[in-house]
């Protein structure tokens, strides 16, 4: 009763098993490894903040415990699969941090992590800056009124200033490293919104006008913009971030700071978040796993 067919099928299964064991022995990861992070974590006034950690694994590994040098409390809030390829998972863990005693920015390059059913191990994380707790402004003078991003890796943010300001400088951390991953363009909107709307809240709600401005011409590359620039009250400016899709092997989460000076000579800061999440092909992940050195057999 179909004996030959059964034996042939079992033989095929055994060949599959043998092939897979050989493949597994050659390709297996000794353990999960972290991706490179360039990240700023801004703590709030109570000393709370969230760190996003990305790691690669090919098993069901989860982060059980984490220890950041110089940080009082760090625990895993939750984690999820960020990306899955044929052989690997890229997982994202949200680590809740709490420390009210930090008064100076703290730079972390190594983190101790205990993955499920493993011992604590020291991992290179890239560079994470923990910024001391601040109280966020409820009504900032430089306000982000709209943001949008496209699949092609272009992200646009629209800001307006509530009072006359002079833009002195645009700064961001890890500039020499992370500037390879994206380009910034700045555009000033000559025709101000106040002519079309009644200003303030009404202007923010005028989405049609905002949309027109968001996707209009992209502006001048930041390096060609001559600073300082004076902006009048309610004037709008636009920042375009164009990410390089071929350089997406790192996680970047930083804050761009627009350093302004008001008429009284005081410093006013505008903020915009730059967020580049890692995406890989299976081949890229394999190469990355090989480069992970001691963490890969």
């Amino acid at each position, binding site marked *: *009763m*179909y*004996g030959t*067919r*059964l034996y042939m*099928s*079992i033989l*095929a*299964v*055994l060949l*599959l*098993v043998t*092939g*897979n*064991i050989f*493949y*597994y022995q050659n*390709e*297996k990861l000794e353990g999960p490894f972290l991706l490179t992070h360039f990240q700023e974590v801004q703590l709030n006034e109570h000393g709370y903040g969230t760190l996003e950690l990305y790691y690669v694994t*090919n*098993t*069901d590994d989860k982060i059980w415990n984490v220890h950041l040098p110089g940080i009082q409390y760090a625990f895993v809030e939750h984690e999820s699969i960020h990306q*899955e*390829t*044929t*052989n*690997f*998972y890229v997982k994202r863990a949200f680590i809740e941090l709490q420390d009210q005693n930090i008064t100076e920015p703290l730079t972390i390059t190594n983190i101790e992590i205990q993955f499920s*059913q*493993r011992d604590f191990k020291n991992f290179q994380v890239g560079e994470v800056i923990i910024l001391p707790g601040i109280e966020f402004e409820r009504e900032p003078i430089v306000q982000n009124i709209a943001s949008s991003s496209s699949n092609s890796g272009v992200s646009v943010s629209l800001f307006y200033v509530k009072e006359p300001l002079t833009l002195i400088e645009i700064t961001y951390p890890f500039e020499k490293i992370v500037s390879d991953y994206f380009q910034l363009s700045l555009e000033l909107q000559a025709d101000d919104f106040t002519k079309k709307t009644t200003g303030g809240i009404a202007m923010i709600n005028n989405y049609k006008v905002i949309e027109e401005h968001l996707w209009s011409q992209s502006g001048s590359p930041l390096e060609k913009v001559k600073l300082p620039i004076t902006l009048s009250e309610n004037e709008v400016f636009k920042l375009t971030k164009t990410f390089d899709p071929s350089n997406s092997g790192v996680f970047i989460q930083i804050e761009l700071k627009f350093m302004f000076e008001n008429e009284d000579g005081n410093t006013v800061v505008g903020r915009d978040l730059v967020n580049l999440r890692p995406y890989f092909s299976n081949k890229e992940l394999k190469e990355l796993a090989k480069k992970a050195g001691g963490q890969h057999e």
Partner: protein
Amino acid sequence: MNKGYRLLFIGLLLILIDLRINTFDLLPDFVGYIMIALGINELKTKGSSFSKATPFALILIFLVFPSLVGYEGIGLDTKSLPLLPYLLETVIGVFHLLMMYFIFAGTWQLANEYKDDIWEKATKVRWNLYAIVHIIFLSLFAFQFTIPTLKPLIVISLIIVIIVEFVMIVFIKKTESQTEIWECEET
């Protein structure tokens, strides 16, 4: 003859049902395989195929022993030796399939001997279903370490295997009743 099938039915049911307290199996699989071995022993005079199932049932009694308390229960570190349970499960799967093949081949021979065309056909149809589902599952299972993203598919195929296993157990139970009819017709 029906005692043999009754033992097969109870044995297969014990293997299928997994009741555990912590990791301890209240209905141990090895007891199931002992019942099957006894059932086969009852049936082996009725057909040569049943005899061929005996060695597989006997080997399986020992192979499934670790499942009594789970791999961690016997002190096996599955993280450092992940391939060992995987290999063991594969061998158990293959041996179980071969054992079932000889039981079904024996049943088919019996139906043929008693000139019960309907049962003969029913045995073939069910065996085909059983073999296909198991081969697909074992093939997918082979990739569980190398393609972790296949895991949902492996789980789905395992559920189908359990359903088909249940269908087979019901068939064995029906065969037990059918053997009485065959014996009545014979006398």
